[in-house]
């Protein structure tokens, strides 16, 4: 290589394109051409879906995307500080959903007045209790994971921690299956948040339903994201997190207890996952041991899409992924079951074409 650069004339050397780049260009051009073709087809030829249907897709995408964003924050926080992917994050979310499920079950069984339960007499309190339970369980699980599965391996090669994370994920999934049985359980929402209820908007002459749960989840997610952004940007703890992300040793020289802040980061990431789990349950209505797996991977995709380690990136990535996944199958003329394929194709494409993600910067060598 060195010999070649020395002998090749200057102009030639500059213009030389590596074979890998040729493949990249060919792939990029064909994908763009195909997407443009589909765009004109959907706009001018096909009239399978009206504007009302597209709106329904968009709304469902925004809601799911907001939840992805909340989960993605957890990945990005941990990655930002330790450069490690916490693959058990989806399972932490699943456990949060279970905690909320049991709270609703319990409150639904407590009678309050004639013919009604505590759950429906005090729906707001019930929801708050469910969030407290879900977030506490997930926070505890985040702390436990850090202590048991990651801290002993810190300082070793990062691949080791990654393998440990995958092991923790499988362990939690199977533990949940053993404890709660693989049965799919219906999440018992309070009546005012019952699934399927909502308000209708007329779009091109047809009603489009905006569900109460969807609205609740979307608004709740945005509030959580704003809260998290505030914590990271404006508090003493957030400053310590950002300092550790840049330079652990220098952070320790400021008097920051690095181990403690890392544990607190896992706690915060767990709390976000727990809240996401509760919202997932409220909106989708089903809880079982496997619900954390796919959303976990999707949120990881969202975090990579936005630029892993970058907090606004995770938010943007989550929303974009949710919307693309919801609109994608119809736009591409594919089966709806293929939405997962679309999501993970995005992961591959991002890694090939822009590994730093939408908002990410190129990670400095020393950090990798």
């Amino acid at each position, binding site marked *: 290589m060195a010999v070649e650069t020395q002998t090749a004339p200057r102009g030639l050397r500059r213009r030389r394109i590596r074979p890998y780049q040729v493949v990249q260009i060919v792939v990029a051009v064909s994908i763009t051409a195909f997407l443009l073709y589909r765009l004109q087809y959907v706009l001018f030829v096909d009239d399978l879906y009206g504007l009302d249907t597209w709106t329904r897709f968009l709304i469902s995408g925004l809601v799911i995307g907001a939840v992805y964003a909340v989960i993605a924050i957890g990945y990005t926080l941990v990655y930002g500080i330790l450069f490690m992917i916490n693959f058990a994050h989806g399972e932490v979310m699943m456990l949060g959903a279970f905690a909320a499920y049991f709270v609703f079950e319990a409150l639904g069984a407590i009678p309050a007045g004639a013919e009604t339960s505590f759950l429906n007499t005090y729906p707001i309190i019930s929801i708050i209790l469910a969030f407290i339970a879900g977030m506490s369980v997930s926070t505890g699980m985040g702390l436990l994971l850090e202590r048991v599965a990651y801290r002993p391996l810190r300082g070793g090669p990062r691949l080791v921690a990654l393998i440990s994370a995958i092991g923790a994920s499988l362990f939690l999934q199977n533990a949940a299956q053993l404890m709660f049985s693989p049965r799919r359980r219906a999440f018992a929402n309070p009546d005012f948040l019952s699934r399927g209820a909502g308000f209708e908007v007329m779009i091109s002459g047809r009603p489009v339903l905006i569900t109460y749960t969807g609205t609740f989840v979307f608004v709740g997610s945005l509030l959580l994201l704003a809260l998290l952004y505030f914590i990271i940007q404006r508090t003493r703890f957030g*400053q310590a997190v950002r300092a550790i992300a840049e330079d652990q040793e220098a952070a320790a020289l400021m008097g920051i207890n690095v181990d403690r802040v890392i544990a607190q980061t896992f706690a915060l990431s767990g709390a976000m996952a727990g809240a996401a789990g509760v919202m997932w349950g409220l909106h989708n209505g089903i809880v079982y041991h496997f619900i954390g797996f796919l959303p976990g991977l999707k949120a990881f995709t969202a975090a990579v899409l936005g630029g892993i380690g970058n907090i606004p990136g995770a938010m943007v990535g989550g929303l974009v992924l949710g919307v693309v996944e919801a609109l994608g199958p119809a736009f591409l003329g594919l089966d709806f079951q293929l939405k997962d394929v679309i999501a993970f194709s995005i992961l591959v494409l991002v890694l090939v074409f822009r590994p730093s993600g939408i908002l990410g910067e190129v990670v400095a060598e020393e950090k990798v």
Partner: protein
Amino acid sequence: MRQVLSVDSIHTFYGNIHALQGISLEVNEGEIVTLIGGNGAGKSTTLNTICGVVHAREGQVVFEGEDITTLPSHDIVLKGITQSPEGRRIFARLSVLENLTLGAYTRRDRAEFKRNLELVFELFPRLKERQTQFGGTLSGGEQQMLAIGRAMMAQPRLLLLDEPSMGLAPILVQEIFTIIDRLNREGTTILLVEQNAQIALSISDRGYVLQAGQIVLTGSGQELLTNPMVREAYLGEL
């Protein structure tokens, strides 16, 4: 004079490398003490052992009568030792003000924080002008000022400075050392590590010469400046 720091024959290892081979030194209140020596002599390792970045395998570090040999670095900051590390180690993606705030991480008194911030801005007016800028956008000299200012924010009873002149233009070196001298006159006890022996010794009360992990010579700043061995080895005179 009251003794602030006493390092008693410490041995520090990096893996199998015996970096410090029985270093002993002391720093008294109000002093400015310099460690000089060539590359790899163990100057930075000595500072890092004092502030807990690495730990001595043998020997003792005593600060204000308390054994701090095995304390983690964040606890040592709490005891009152801060460091402006080699290479400055500014948080590049945090603002200048945030860097300074982190310097005061262990100090939670608002009024005290404001007072210290005023003090640092008065020492380094340029940091005040640039307080909203990212640390990474500062010039080398400004980053050094920030590193020293950041270490001062915790009101240290012992300030460790590692190579403050590194990579700076001579005029900036002069400026930084004027400020170090001033900090010392205003009551800060300083332990300094420096390649630039001439300027460092000229403001120091005492100095130690390190070679291959051992102290080979000690004396007042003036004595060392006139010592033939020092002149030959570290002041570039033949």
